């Protein structure tokens, strides 16, 4: 692990939070897309 000096806490928390937010956004987007796709398939089968 590299040495971040006296700002280690700040840098790591900033990166951690940001990457978590980005990851969350991507994950949420993809998950919702999957759900809606599956739902659409079901609906098309039922009411097609």
């Amino acid at each position, binding site marked *: 692990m590299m040495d971040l000096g006296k*700002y280690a806490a700040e840098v790591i*928390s900033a990166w951690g939070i*940001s990457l978590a937010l*980005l990851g969350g956004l991507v994950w949420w987007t993809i998950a919702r897309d999957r759900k809606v796709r599956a739902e659409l398939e079901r609906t098309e089968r039922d*009411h097609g």
Partner: protein
Amino acid sequence: MSIWSYANPRKFLETTAPWVPWLMWLSAAVLAVGLVWGFFFTPEAERFGSSVKIIYLHVPSALMAINAWLMMLVASLIWLVRRHHVSALAARAAAPIGMVMTLIALVTGAIWGQPMWGTWWAWDPRLTSFLILFLFYLGYIALWAAIPDPDSAADLTSVLCLVGSVFAILSRYAVNFWNQGLHQGASLSLDSQENVADVFWLPLLVCMAGFVLLFVSLVLLRTGTEIRARRIAAMRARARRAEPVRA
């Protein structure tokens, strides 16, 4: 064939769907390169120490936060003038992305502010105007979510986006006027590159490209999701109407 033909939901889906996964992977790759470069292979700045590494997230997200709003403004105008459903849905799809970008810029800035200015929060103009931008995003998203009828929602949010843009610019000037502030100037403008050495500038550029790509691919994906959701709702509505009112 005119560009407006892509405003047909089906055509839009057919055209973009094959591209979206590739775009996602590409943006992931570019982001990874930029972020790894920025995190591991850049030196410390003399004034900021290692805290300068925050810039690789802070600046791109701040840029995208503003650009996402601009994109929503254009899409809203297209909906109001030409009533193409895809553009309304694209505006809707972009908003949460813009909001997350704003949030990242705010959070990284706040964390950065603690060592640099000795405070988490200061009523600095740029910080303040980002807080206001965040509120705009929240209101816009909440308005979309609150209106059951999709066309009314598209109309009202578009009007809000127009009016809001005017007021966002106004408040930018107002906030500047109110408090001269601690924040860095816009030293990244292209003609004043000497302000930032290439060691910081190049990986930052890659990160910005990564954020732009990520934004584009997410907007395309989310727009597709919105279109599919509308299609489900439309089919259900049709099915519901098929049932008799009373046996």
